[in-house]
């Protein structure tokens, strides 16, 4: 039997545990990569099966937690009951520079804290008053977004009307984001909704809101970094590289970004998108509306960084192309040294991944650079186009699981016996109890950055630490 056949048999075996209907549904989401499969052979972006323990979040998490939340100089209101804002308060490590509470608000939680009376009588009046109070207490804020939670959409509040009235009154943007958690099947719709609010509420007034830098002239090398959330500072080494090859980054949307940077975006020549899943919508719109092209890049690991730098440089003239080669050459010796050092300790180690909508493919080459082998991967909330993009990243025989359930993930790990699992906080300690080394791939396990050349060093060190730490050897007692 080949690996592919073995693993197909494993999938069948794992699915046996389900009731029939659930088994049928889940079977469509799990597959083994075969050479001819350009889409990994899995269905995606479908409703999660109730009760199976999906790892997915909701639209609110995607809109507030991911896309809008990192815009640092705006206030993002968790509009509704207290919980959502509380659980997503400072959880995502999207780093920023600023004086929190004065000109930036990233690690604060603002909520309308709905009570029963707000459900009964509606929350619009409270919301309007709340925005007045924000103006009073946080005068340097550059605007407000309203992320609505489940009840708001169910009781028929009109947050758009409130937003329109308050924007007019205050002269600052007030953006209603209809991201109730019951909408859609995962965080993914929340990303899309947030992108749509940029399209509908921000870009039409971009010229009015924009503050240009002194003496600013649009230039041929102006680009935006789109879809880097600056986890552990990721966007900064990325920006560094883009500037090193001669480009001018005029906006980071949204990690360490400001509202002004959001309205700067239409001035760029090219959108460079890291997290395709969460931000492709606005890139497509800007292409359509302003004729700004967009390009996906991958700054995980030296192989992909070099590839991406060349791909980006190819969009520009020879000056940039030459500089890109210089930059690649400049970092190469250090990257070689890093690979030499860590590859010796990581060669042949098997990895299983499960992350959100980008990293299940994007990080694969970084592992490969270290001699590691990704044997299973899947998205929490990827779509068909993500799986299409994944096919080129994974080897034949890789198990692909979409919206994997707790049960499936545990069973696959038991059978496939990876040396490392790279997923999220909810999975971390489950696998560590199984004596499996683990790294969080959402928050970088409180480390980072992982993007860019500076980030790869940290990534390599962390994977080595995870796998080669002696504590794993202590789990079995000597008398057992």
């Amino acid at each position: 039997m080949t690996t592919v056949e073995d693993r197909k048999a494993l999938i069948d075996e794992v699915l046996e545990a389900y009731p029939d209907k659930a088994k049928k549904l889940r079977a469509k989401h799990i597959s083994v990569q075969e050479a001819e499969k350009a889409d990994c052979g899995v269905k995606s972006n479908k409703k999660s099966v109730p009760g199976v323990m999906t790892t997915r979040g909701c639209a609110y998490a995607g809109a507030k937690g991911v896309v809008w939340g990192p815009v640092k100089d705006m206030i993002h209101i968790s509009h509704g009951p207290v919980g959502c804002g509380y659980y997503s308060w400072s959880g995502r490590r999207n780093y920023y520079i600023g004086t929190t509470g004065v000109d930036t608000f990233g690690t604060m939680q603002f909520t309308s804290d709905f009570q029963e009376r707000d459900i009964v009588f509606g929350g619009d009046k409270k919301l309007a008053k709340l925005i007045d109070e924000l103006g009073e207490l946080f005068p340097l804020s550059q605007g407000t977004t309203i992320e609505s939670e489940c009840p708001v959409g169910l009781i028929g509040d009109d947050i758009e009307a409130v937003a329109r009235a308050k924007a007019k009154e205050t002269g600052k943007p007030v953006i209603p984001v209809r991201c109730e958690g019951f909408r859609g099947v995962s965080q993914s719709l929340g990303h899309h909704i947030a992108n749509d609010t940029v399209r509908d509420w921000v870009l039409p007034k971009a010229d009015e809101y924009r503050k240009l830098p002194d003496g600013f002239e649009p230039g041929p090398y102006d680009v935006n970094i789109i879809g880097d959330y600056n986890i552990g500072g990721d966007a900064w080494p990325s920006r560094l590289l883009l500037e090193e090859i001669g480009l001018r980054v005029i906006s980071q949307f949204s990690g360490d970004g400001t509202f002004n940077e959001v309205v700067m975006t239409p001035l760029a020549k090219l959108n460079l998108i890291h997290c395709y899943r969460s931000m492709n919508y606005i890139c497509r719109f800007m292409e359509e509306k302003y004729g700004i092209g967009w390009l996906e890049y991958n700054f995980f690991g030296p192989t992909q960084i070099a590839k991406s730098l060349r791909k980006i440089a190819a969009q520009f003239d020879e000056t940039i192309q030459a500089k890109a080669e210089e930059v690649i050459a400049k970092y190469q010796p250090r990257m070689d040294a890093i690979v030499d050092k860590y590859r010796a300790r990581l060669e042949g180690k098997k990895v299983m991944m499960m992350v959100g909508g980008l990293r299940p493919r994007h990080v694969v080459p970084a592992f490969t650079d270290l001699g590691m082998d990704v044997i299973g991967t899947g998205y929490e909330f990827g779509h068909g186009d993500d799986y299409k993009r994944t096919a080129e990243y994974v080897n034949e025989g890789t198990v692909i699981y979409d919206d994997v359930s707790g049960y499936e993930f545990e069973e696959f790990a038991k059978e496939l016996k990876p040396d490392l699992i790279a997923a999220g906080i909810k999975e971390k300690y489950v696998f560590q109890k199984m004596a499996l080394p683990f790294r969080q791939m959402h928050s970088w396990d409180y480390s980072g950055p992982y993007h860019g050349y500076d980030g790869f060093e940290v990534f390599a060190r962390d994977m080595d630490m995870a796998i080669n730490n002696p504590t794993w050897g202590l789990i079995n007692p000597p008398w057992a």
Partner: protein
Amino acid sequence: MTDNLDNTIPTPSCGGEDLGQVKDHFELFHTDTYQDLFEYKRQFEGAHSRDLVAETAEWTKSWDYREKNFAREALTVNPAKACQPLGALFVAAGFEDTLPYSHGSQGCVAYFRSHLTRNYKEPFQAVSSSMTEDAAVFGGLSNLKAGLENSYTLYKPKMIALCTTCMAEVIGDDIGAYITTAKNEGHIPEDLPVPAAHTPSFVGSHITGYDNMLKSILKTLTKDEKSETTNGKFNFNLGFDPYIGNIRELKRILGLFGVDYTVLSDNSDTFDSPNTGEFKMYNGLTTLADTADSINAEGTVFFQKYTTPKTQEYIAKEWGQKTYNFRPFGIKGTDEFLMTLSAITGKPIPLELQQERGRAVDALTDSQAWIHGKKIALYGDPDHVLSLVQFLLEMGAEPTHIVVTNSNDEFEAEARELLTNSPYGQGGTVWGGKDLWHLRSLMFTEPVDLLIGNSYGKYLWRDTGTPLVRIGYPIFDRHHMHRYATLGYQGAINQFNWIVNTILEELDRKTIVPAKTDISFDLIR
């Protein structure tokens, strides 16, 4: 030497740089390269001038700002409370083979699991009905049926403890009827206990959810279990107490007493299971049989009366059982608990505990000089805060700003009485329903020496320079705190140790500059 006798990985040379110096975010962004990058980026940010930011920052520290801040009616900033289902899942996880189940949108469960996991560094398994738009229109019955069947089949629980999210509450799902339907249609066995609790997030907070779920679990499991005679046991409930060390400490104390007991929701192993190389899904220690029999106990003891008012009333009324409230924290709180326990069980206070009391008091007298008269700001759940206030007063510290976001009138009256009756409580103010942004104003306008709170207190520490002692929930940025007891004499020593050593560390921090502040950089303190 050609043979490599040791197994160290040779470090290759790379441009003269030492590879050992991998810089991560702690150092990397403070290098000139990145500092320059930040400065360059500013031009695109539409940022306010640094002077204006500094001026505004100063203003946020003023009395004027405080008044404006306290005038708000609609806005909540940095609240110290979560929503009901968190408490419901937390209490459910203390029972044998119990699967916490949240009926409503699925994102909530992702949040509950992440939150508890971040505090305990332990797995937390719970499932959801994964309701979406169609359920919003047609109700969640089919989601609930599928959810119960799938979770029961996959995870094989002995009990499914079901609570609701605000979505299910707003659309008015009749969960009681739905569960009956699910059983009638054979999705789950008839005899599978599925206690259900309505836990809308727009009512109360996580402690309310704890109460609602606990009551439902007890009601479900004790149905038709009442016997003629008592079983000679006492039930104990610790409420939403993040310290699993407290459950273990309580069991030790009861063991020393020789009291037969049932801990209602013993999640000490749930949140602290041994690493054996095998993942165990269920670690709740309160057996369903013991829970069913809890209706026949001599009495039930509650340590958090504001967390569990409904459960207590239910036990007193429906079971006709005697109920007690204690806060066995600090010296006097523990004294009172042990004396009453001794009185109701007729057993003397064990010598070991008497010696522990002596040791705890000895510790307090040894260090009292460092804590006497220190002004303290603190926040958290009502009972947690009351325990701390009582303990601080008996050490001669002065609880000054007391913020409880999920407050109630009864708690506030009790807290004020506690303060009034102590010479050290005269400057104390109780701020019910206020949040941590209010507290920031309080701490700027009326500074204190020390702040006691959860990890979110670190922002107040950063802004006001007031050292933080982490006691509460959640604690995300320190490890292993939850393993300790804060209860009993041993717990008093633990808490005191954290408090007094935070004060001493702060003194060192303030006296560490050579030739400038290090006059008082004392070796002996």
